[in-house]
């Protein structure tokens, strides 16, 4: 058995994850061609690199098919109910910062807080005969946030990409999306709600509480944890 580490298979997130581990004496690399999702680990014996889509890593951790995984707090909390019971946070990696925020058109000068949003949603529903639509891919997080805040008369519509454009296309009245600088939101004439921060997220190393750990896995995990501890 080997200790399995799941890392996002593409783009900057993978490279930055590799850099982060390299600084701590663990060399991760992709093997084979660029199209092949296989990897190698040096620095910790009995450890294996599994390249996965970032969105699948929470599920794989919860199923115990990987022992460790790097993915955003947003994805873990969206995909895993009672996530603390299923995974343990080992380290925040200091990149991949993103906030899940509620944003409305800038010209809604009457809406600045959740309190305003709730009132506007009520009027909108009376006027248009349907609830105010919020485009998002973070259904659970947004719903729990709005339930907690006591906002009513809204509905979530699924948007897996180009979420900011849904308002212009009139498939939604507002959005709940990930932003790091807010630039895309501004470019699409949207603004943040003052109290509409749903979640602050960054790339995080998680440990599965569900996966089985044999003695070799435990040894590998301890070696890795020592290395991480060393370079904190």
């Amino acid at each position, binding site marked *: 058995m080997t200790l399995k580490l799941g890392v996002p298979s593409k783009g900057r997130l993978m490279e930055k994850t590799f850099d982060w581990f390299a600084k701590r004496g663990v060399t991760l690399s992709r093997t084979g061609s660029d199209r092949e999702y296989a990897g190698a680990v040096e620095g910790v014996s009995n450890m294996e690199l599994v390249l996965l889509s970032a969105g699948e890593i929470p599920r794989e951790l919860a199923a115990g098919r990987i022992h460790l995984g790097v993915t955003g707090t947003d994805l873990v909390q969206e995909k895993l109910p009672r996530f603390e019971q299923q995974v343990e946070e080992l380290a925040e990696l200091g990149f991949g910062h993103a906030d899940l925020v509620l944003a409305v058109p*800038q010209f809604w000068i009457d809406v600045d807080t959740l309190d305003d949003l709730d009132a506007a949603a009520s009027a909108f529903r009376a006027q248009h005969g349907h609830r105010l639509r919020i485009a998002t891919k973070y259904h659970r997080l947004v719903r729990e946030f709005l339930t907690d805040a006591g*906002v009513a008369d809204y509905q979530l519509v699924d948007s897996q990409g180009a979420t900011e454009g849904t308002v212009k296309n009139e498939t939604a*009245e507002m959005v709940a999306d990930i932003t790091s600088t807010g630039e895309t939101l501004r470019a699409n004439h949207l603004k943040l709600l003052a109290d509409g921060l749903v979640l602050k997220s960054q790339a995080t190393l998680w440990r599965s509480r569900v996966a089985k750990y044999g003695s070799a896995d435990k040894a590998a995990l301890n070696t890795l944890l020592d290395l991480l501890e060393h370079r904190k």
Partner: protein
Amino acid sequence: MAVRSQIQARAAMLRLRFEAAGAQVVDTPLLQPADTLLDLYGEDIRARAYVTSDALRGEQMLRPDFTVPVVEAHMRHGAEPARYTYSGEVFRRQEHFPDRPNEYLQVGYEVFERDDAAAADAEVFALFALQVRGLPLRAATGDIGILMAAVEGLNTTEKRKAALMRHIWRPRRFRSLLDRFAGRTPMPESRRKLLSTEGDLTGSAVELGKRRAAEVQARVEALRADAKAPPIAEHELLALEALMAVRETVPFATEQMRDIAVDLPQIIPALDRLDARTAAMKARGVDVDNLDFEASYGRTSMEYYDGFVFGFYAEARPDLPPVASGGRYDALTRRLGQGEEIPAVGGVLRPDLMLQLEEARK
């Protein structure tokens, strides 16, 4: 744990008893159209019910309760008055309570009766109390109609009252609205700025989306008008808070609320209805002197209760959901009736929990 066949046998027995009490058996499909439930409960229902879909019928939900389909069936072709009973599975997602079953049997009894609300309330409560007699349960009762009457009679604008009524079932938002309307919350800077303006606002921001500039302007005007309205008076607010905090046995609760009615006379008719119900319950042998009454009971549940509410809880097992619960839902029949309405009261029992408690006592 009781096995499934035992639970089913108990459910069948309970349904038979409800039939003996005069109810007619109804059955409803397991798959319910999602639209109706979403329309009633909003997005919250998705956290509680299983949603499924196909390309032809769109979204459907695995029956999260019987009340809505039973009301719909009655509104379509029910004779009056009517008493219904049913027994079957309901499905609830339990993401926050993984130890609770997500599929269980419910047995229900619903009364659609125009004439004597107090008698119908008492009939339902007494019938449920009889089914759970002998189990170590605490009964809780309440009446959301009293709080609604208090809000409707507040000396403030219709808009504020409508906003409060809309959030009766969301205590936190209700609280923050109340604080704002009473002038207790400092105004956010953005609001102060907005209110310092006059006339039509012409901004540089692009108008986009289905919510139009005219709607924004209309709300700005509503905010300006609201800022001119005086805050809810202190004595009204204190009386309302005292009312929401009432938690006593029925006789003492009634006495406290009669005192509160000096400042909130609008609740007097609702209190008279409570007295009538208490008398009707007493006549049916309910020990009302030792029955708990909480004025805020039933406000956090998603159900559409707007009058009498009750629940039976296992005293030694606070982790369990209520073994039986129910209440009056006149407003629900109005919402589903497309112009029609009929006063209705009913409740459901959990045979699995009854068996579990009986076993634990052995």
